[in-house]
């Protein structure tokens, strides 16, 4: 950072200003409407995945909590949105709010467990809780449809005007708006004293309480927020595709979002979005050629990123621009 500041509030408020690059980035996300109108469904999926990655970034990139089971909240949001629409309440916006609230509630409950553990035990407990929820949804097929997925999800038009059609125009607009709003919340959070405390926890978990910041209380808060945002992402997926499959809760989804975030660069908010764009577009292109071997390339990419680009693609880019005298933050 090139900002000279002695007082933390100056650092925080300096981070809140929008740079030109950020504005261009968000405007560029509107381009698919004009340039690739036949890929809007894919664009909508990308926006949803990006939102999911942003939710993981809040806990992993900022607070340093590794989660191998974050799909639990994504799936919870998806099933909540699907189930209430099946029960006759098909209005999308309230559906989103209910899904977020439920995911937040479960996240808050789980955060009491999460905040107590670190390292391998934490990885295994998040993995185990994710798997438990997956198995539970699989067993409760009277509610979730089990392995066949949830059938009969019907979503009413957005604002009673814009229908979710096959072309995905409404879907992309809706998902992008969701991504942007949640991103604003996340962005505001990380540039607050609370966000600074989270970074302190990431750097040294035991020393933060010594300066008066209760690590566990902070972790509980950010975990709840992260769960709510993941729930919104899941609900967006359920509403825009009008189906919910068991896959939303799978370990594969938790692993994929981790890969996406690391690929883009954790701890920078935009990392998740960039990672999601690259990952999803590449998967769409490669799996057309030979779907089985998609993971070969993702695996190689992961190895390369860990060995060569420790801070992900955004980290690598920012190193390059610093070398060339640019001002990418």
């Amino acid at each position, binding site marked *: 950072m090139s900002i000279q500041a002695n007082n933390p509030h100056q650092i925080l408020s300096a981070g809140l200003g929008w740079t030109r690059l950020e504005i261009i980035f968000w405007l560029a996300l509107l381009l698919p409407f004009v340039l690739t109108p036949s890929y809007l469904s894919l664009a909508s999926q990308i926006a949803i995945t990006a939102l999911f990655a942003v939710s993981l970034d809040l806990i992993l990139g900022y607070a340093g909590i590794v989660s191998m089971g974050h799909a639990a909240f994504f799936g919870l949001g998806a099933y909540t949105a699907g189930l209430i629409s099946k029960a006759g309440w098909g209005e999308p916006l309230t559906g989103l709010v209910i899904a977020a609230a439920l995911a937040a509630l479960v996240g808050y409950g789980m955060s009491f467990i999460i905040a107590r553990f670190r390292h391998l035990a934490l990885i295994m407990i998040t993995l185990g809780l994710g798997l438990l929820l997956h*198995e539970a949804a699989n067993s409760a097929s009277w509610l979730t449809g089990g392995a066949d997925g949830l059938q009969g999800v019907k979503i009413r038009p957005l604002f009673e005007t814009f229908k979710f059609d096959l072309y995905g125009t409404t879907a992309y607009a809706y998902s992008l708006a969701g991504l942007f709003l949640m991103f604003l919340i996340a962005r505001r959070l990380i540039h607050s004293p609370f966000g600074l405390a989270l970074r302190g926890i990431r750097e040294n978990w035991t020393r933060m309480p010594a300066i008066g910041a209760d690590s566990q209380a902070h972790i509980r808060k950010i975990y709840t927020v992260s769960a709510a945002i993941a729930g919104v992402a899941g609900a967006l997926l359920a509403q825009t595709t009008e189906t919910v499959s068991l896959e939303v809760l799978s370990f594969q989804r938790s692993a994929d979002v981790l890969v996406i975030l690391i690929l883009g660069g954790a701890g920078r908010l935009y990392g998740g979005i960039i990672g999601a764009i690259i990952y999803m577009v590449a998967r769409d292109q490669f799996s057309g050629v030979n779907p089985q071997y998609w993971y070969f390339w993702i695996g190689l990419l992961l190895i390369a990123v860990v060995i060569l680009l420790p801070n992900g693609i955004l980290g690598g880019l920012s190193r390059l621009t610093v070398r060339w005298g640019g001002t990418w933050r």
Partner: protein
Amino acid sequence: MLGSLVGVLFDGFAYGMLLFLLSVGLSVTLGMMNFVNLAHCSFAMVGGYVTVTLINDLGWPFLATLPIAFLAAAIVSIALERTLFRRLYRATDLDQCLLTIGIVFVSVAVAAYFYGTIQQPINTPAYLRGTVTVLGMTVGAYRLFLIGVSLAVTAILVAALEYTRFGAQVRAAVDNQRMARGLGIDVDRAFALTFALGGGLAGLGGALAIEIIGLDPSFGFTYLIYVLIVVAVGGLGSIGGSFAAATVIGISDMAGKYYFPELGAFVIYLVMVVILMWRPLGLFGRR
């Protein structure tokens, strides 16, 4: 009821022994270097596919393929350790997880490329098929064989760790790596050898697993979860802990599937979460 209970206990124990073979190497290397190697089950897959190839394409007898499966997996694991893993010993848990998950992805795709995504069939020799009667109980011959091999391996491992110079070096490195270095023990060398041994045991486990749980390219992922559960529950760096944990997990999984089939793998995940919440370092973890 009692008969089925004994049967479930026996099958669960045999399954637990398989999990023990698959996971003991990971437990020791994790305890020694704190290196989270999620690609451990890919080494098992190497062993499994070597056995399949030797039996089906070259007509080797089953028993003769087992040492080759061990060796092949050991060689692959030491090659990866020397080229990739050793760069990340001081990196974070997350980086290690990601690198090794990358290796799992690659290995799954490579296995699918060469062998297809189908389950690999093998012909076990006639004397390992069917059932035998031991102490009035009728048990599967293969499972009995599996238990015998695993107990033999455990005995050799424990003896080697307790009574050889190399074993003492490994124990010292697991207990306190810096102190061991200070005493002039070549921890890197001891670690590389342990890593190869652990990879080899996983390869042996993979070869023995084909008959019980099958082998397809997703093996590296499916059983990774079970292996991690055993390691986390047993505690890092503890052979006895891995043994106990593998037995508990094997029996509870088998009993769960037998008595509550509708719950699926729910029971085993629940057992793990509860044990870890009670003892975050595992049953036998010390640090």
